[in-house]
């Protein structure tokens, strides 16, 4: 055999991390002006860690099918300020009867804030404001749950987040009006990178519903890298809906890290149809008894889109329940990646965990990699997992056509039906309508589907 030629760099050269260390230096003044000494130290540690880690490569198990080289290659600049967007720009992301807060390129756009009937003690504010108004609370929780040692994008966010959102719900309070967070990516002439940081803290027996929409206003490439930490206090009910609906020029690498205390009910609905390369890390730790975690997801991508949902559910205590259902619809040359780990600690007896990933391939060139995994150290548990990849049922298409439904409409109807069990799991009518509208508009002959479902 001939001498091995050096492989074309699958690793990202250090040069690609420079833009971020430069950005860190440029932002130094602003980043130092808020926060705490602990945060300053963390930021420093995180940017150093990122410089060591570099962008992940497909040689790393957790990134095997998701090549982020196109992000590393793009000459991105860390955003140092934000343009303004008009009310008209974001009107279609507005939900009636919701508290609303808008970030543009990772920074609060205060003119769009609308606080609706928030009960006493509830905080919905920018992270920068929260450092002023509730420093102890923020200090107690921010950057405590999403770990960056092993994760380049969490490291980037920890080091470089300029602003974000802080939500706090005190003990026993039920927030009736949902909170709608609109995270706008507003592309500029040069491609920007930004790092929104979100923290939701809920105290015992409280309840809240939060939407997190990622949208684009304008045209062009950008890279958004949000991290959200949620603390679900004892006996809380938290419903989280994430709608990832950016343009096809967006890169989106996100992490959701949830800490669940005993008797908490956390549900997450992760709906992804925008972005060129999208990664959703969704992690929850069930750290008290009798927790429930419901993790639903739907992704529908086309063209050259890639969406990667990377889940980790950690059962650390007995008698908890987790249920994951992620469904994917892949068209064109798109790629769907699903990795789900259910980890059950030795003492977490009577764990009841279900995980399923179902994929529908609508073209021969679409591709899917699905790897559900179990790591169970307890012996008295009920855990099931499964994944499927399939195409539309030919016989079902024929059956529908034989009743007079056109071929395209038949295909669309069956595609919609595939998505329907996720759609119906979306309890909030505003979000459900948005999702349905997206599907009706996206599917060929969607008007017939609208009639038929």
């Amino acid at each position, binding site marked *: 055999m001939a001498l091995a030629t050096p492989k074309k760099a699958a690793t990202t050269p250090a040069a690609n991390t420079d833009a971020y260390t430069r950005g860190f230096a440029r932002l130094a003044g602003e980043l130092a002006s808020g926060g705490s000494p602990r945060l300053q130290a963390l930021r420093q540690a995180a940017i150093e860690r990122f410089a060591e880690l570099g962008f992940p490569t497909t040689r790393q198990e957790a990134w095997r099918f998701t090549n982020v080289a196109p992000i590393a290659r793009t000459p991105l600049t860390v955003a140092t300020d934000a343009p303004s967007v008009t009310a008209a720009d974001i009107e279609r992301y507005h939900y009636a009867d919701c508290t609303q807060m808008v970030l543009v390129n990772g920074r609060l756009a205060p003119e769009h804030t609308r606080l609706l009937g928030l009960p006493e003690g509830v905080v919905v504010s920018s992270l920068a404001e929260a450092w002023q108004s509730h420093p102890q609370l923020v200090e107690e929780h921010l950057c405590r749950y999403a770990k960056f040692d092993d994760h380049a994008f969490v490291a980037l966010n920890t080091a470089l987040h300029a602003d974000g959102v802080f939500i706090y719900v005190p003990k026993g309070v039920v927030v009736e009006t949902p909170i709608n967070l609109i995270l706008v990516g507003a592309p500029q002439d040069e491609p920007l990178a930004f790092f929104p940081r979100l923290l939701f803290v809920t105290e015992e027996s409280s309840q809240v519903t939060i939407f997190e929409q990622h949208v684009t206003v304008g045209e062009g490439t950008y890279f958004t890298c949000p991290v959200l930490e949620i603390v679900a206090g004892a006996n809380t009910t938290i419903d989280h809906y994430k709608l990832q609906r950016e343009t096809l020029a967006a890169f989106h690498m996100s992490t959701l890290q949830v800490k669940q205390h005993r008797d908490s009910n956390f549900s997450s609905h992760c709906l992804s149809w925008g972005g060129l390369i999208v990664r959703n890390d969704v992690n929850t730790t069930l750290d008290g008894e009798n927790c429930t975690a419901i993790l639903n997801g739907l992704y529908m991508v086309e063209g050259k889109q890639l969406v990667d949902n990377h889940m980790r559910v950690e059962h650390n205590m007995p008698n908890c329940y987790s249920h994951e259902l992620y469904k994917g619809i892949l068209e064109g040359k798109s790629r769907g990646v699903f990795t789900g780990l259910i980890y059950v600690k030795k003492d977490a007896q009577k764990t009841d965990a279900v995980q399923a990933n179902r994929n529908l391939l609508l073209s021969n060139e679409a591709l899917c990699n699905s790897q559900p995994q179990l790591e169970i150290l307890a012996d008295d548990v009920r855990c099931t997992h499964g994944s499927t990849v399939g195409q539309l049922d030919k016989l079902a298409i*024929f059956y*529908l056509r034989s*009743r007079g439904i056109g071929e395209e409409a038949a295909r669309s109807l069956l595609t919609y*039906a595939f998505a329907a069990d996720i759609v119906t799991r979306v309890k909030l009518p505003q979000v459900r309508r948005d999702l349905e509208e997206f599907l009706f508009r996206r599917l060929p002959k969607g008007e017939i589907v609208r009639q038929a479902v």
Partner: protein
Amino acid sequence: MCLLKIENLHAGVEGTEILTGLDLTVKVGEVHAIMGPNGSGKSTLAQVLAGRADYEVTAGSITYRGEDLLELAPEIRAREGIFLAFQYPVEIPGVSNVYFLKAALNAIRKHRGQEEIDAMDFLAYVKSKMEIVKMEEELLHRPVNEGFSGGEKKRNEIFHMEVLDPTLAVLDETDSGLDIDALKIVAEGVNSMRSPERGFIIITHYQRLLNFIVPDVVHVMVGGRIVETGGKELALELEAKGYGGHTRAAEAAAEAAMPASG
């Protein structure tokens, strides 16, 4: 007037010929019964009529109301008035039975230059049809055929037929596996729709159905073609004697048709 004319139809899958030169003519207003042993190609004929692409037609013709049926896509055939009640109705999770029917009916109406039916009228219309087949309201709102019992699926097919109001209805063993009450419901469905403008092809394995739906013409199908045609008394004869004679005759014919091999 001639509703359907099939001449010398050859069809099959990947090199296996299943229909081997089939002729059949149905006039408007007539009810034809096709009987034959398992595997004789009855369902293949039904599926070819509905336009299933898995079967390749290699020779012959099908003329429906003067048009070349084989040129038409399945949905166009349906809109032109052909209805097939499947031997094995397909379960479609996630698609509601009643909304699906509404979309189908509207597709058909649009094709015929009629206006879309409005929701209230549709509901009243559907209710009247449900009574005929004694369908429980609950089955309307369930996904198409999902979790339906065998009998419910067959009744649902007849219900679809009632709603879509076809010109030529093909029933593929809709009676198989039904108890006597369900069988009577199916028969009533057909009888209520019998009219001088409509034709039926009733494929059945059992003579019993024909006690309730009295056919104008009975055919015996063996080995992919019609081997005998007669009046309703032919069904009784078959009941008494079985297909034995026909099967042997068909085998002999097939052998005679085979090229001599050394």
